């Protein structure tokens, strides 16, 4: 089927994502924040689907929404919510945070304004053939970006070993 009402769905999911993201940092109850983050991640997966990237969307749901967020919730469930609700919220790094946010926003605006130069038209290859999406991701990862992929896997291995070393009392 050809896509139907694409702009409508894009703005819908983008709005859900933004509202979810704002709720994550404004809610006092950490369980609410976690749920808002799950909603934002799901909306992001929907946008991936609209970009003809079904594999990335599936992995996003399985890993982030269904895996990592469960672990987040797992930790939050053991925290005493009543106490943390009464505590005054503070953030001593708001100056640095504002500077970083402004810089990132400026970068986004700059990229958006110069999009034609940074991403020339011939560089954007949208393959509407969704069937080849998984194979395409795999051949990119194991071909063109092999080095970066292996470095990432090495980093993850180090993180795993670190987690085991920290969790075990006696090696």
């Amino acid at each position, binding site marked *: 089927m050809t896509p139907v009402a694409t702009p409508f769905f894009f703005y819908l999911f983008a709005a859900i994502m933004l509202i979810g993201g704002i709720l994550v940092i404004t809610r006092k109850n950490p369980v609410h924040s976690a749920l808002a983050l799950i909603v934002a991640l799901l909306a992001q997966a929907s946008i991936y689907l609209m970009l003809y990237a*079904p594999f990335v969307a*599936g992995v996003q749901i399985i890993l982030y929404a269904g895996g990592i967020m469960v672990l987040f919730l797992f930790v939050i469930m053991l925290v005493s919510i009543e106490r943390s609700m009464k505590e005054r919220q503070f953030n001593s790094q708001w100056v640095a945070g504002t500077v970083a946010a402004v810089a990132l926003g400026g970068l986004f605006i700059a990229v958006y304004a110069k999009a034609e130069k940074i991403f020339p038209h011939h560089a954007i290859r949208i393959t509407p053939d969704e069937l080849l999406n998984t194979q395409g991701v795999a051949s990119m990862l194991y071909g063109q970006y092999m080095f970066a992929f292996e470095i990432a896997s090495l980093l993850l291995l180090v993180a795993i070993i670190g987690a085991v070393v920290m969790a075990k009392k006696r090696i």
Partner: protein
Amino acid sequence: MPLPLSIFILVSVIKSAIVLGVLLTAVAYTVWLERKVVGHMQNRWGPTRVGPFGLLQPAADGIKFLFKEDLTPPHVYKPLFIAAPMMALIFALTSISVIPFGNSFTFGPFSVPQFLPFHYEMPFHWGGAVIGPYSIPFQITDVNIGLLMILGVTSMGVYGVALAGWSSNNKYSLLGGLRASAQMVSYEIALGLSLVGVLIQSGSFSLRAIVDAQGGHFWGFIPRWNIFHWQFIGFFIYLMAAYAETNRIPFDLPEAETELVAGYHTEYSAMKFAMFFMAEYTNMITVGCVATLLFFGGWHGPLFGPPLVQALLPVFWFAAKIFCFLFLYIWVRGTLPRFRYDQLMSFGWKFLLPLAIANLVATAIFVAW
């Protein structure tokens, strides 16, 4: 001939209604089957009073659930307490939408009778045009990442259980919810890896393509199903991980009644409890569907008879295979005791996961050969 949009939407709505109706009926009668089979295994009769062989017992249970008092304890966190059973049931029912249960059903071409005032493609066009043939697959929607979608939706299902445990504000519920989330996250890895072997062999995420790759026979009589095609280890890993994912005996630690009252649904009553119950049985059926599609050749089976029978037999074979799987579930429930929690974790992480990785590597080498 592709379907026009309006007819496509109509057909999808009808298919969804039929599939949901059949699924919920199957859920109700799986409960009946379980009570009956476990009863006979324990030298009892099981339900006999309502209807012949107790066949109307599910209807009686449903009515009872609807009319029972729906208690909401005062100490719970209300919004999530109400939302949790809904989440559990919605995610359980969603995953059925991508499961194919047969080939496609072709009808047409036929001509629109002259007396019809219009037909949908050209409104106000006076009949007489020839439309079709249309081919409607036995599936609500055929997405090419069907398997990933099922895994994703089932991995979201853990939120219903975890949030129910947390929002009940009760130590037994919280422990049940924590156990459930830890168990489901742990076994999801082994479950996913056990399926990768099949994916490598068939080269697609589409459930339809995976089933199509399993047609035919070895040496003329052994069906070319993936379980006979080197994936028997993968199937056993899947089977055990699936028991853990659906919180069934021997892995029903989240609702271990001797330790945790009823686990995460201790505080739930009436229809909210029934929703958890339905979600659990729907998950059993989904897991059975995936096992059938990936390891037992889906709807492949002997075909005979007139064309209409030939069109419907694949659906029958598919249902029969799922029935065998559900019977196995109940059989295991009537036979095995429950694991201890540390045994459950070490079994998942130290036995199933390495075995699944070994199976994956072996399959990859075998296919690349």
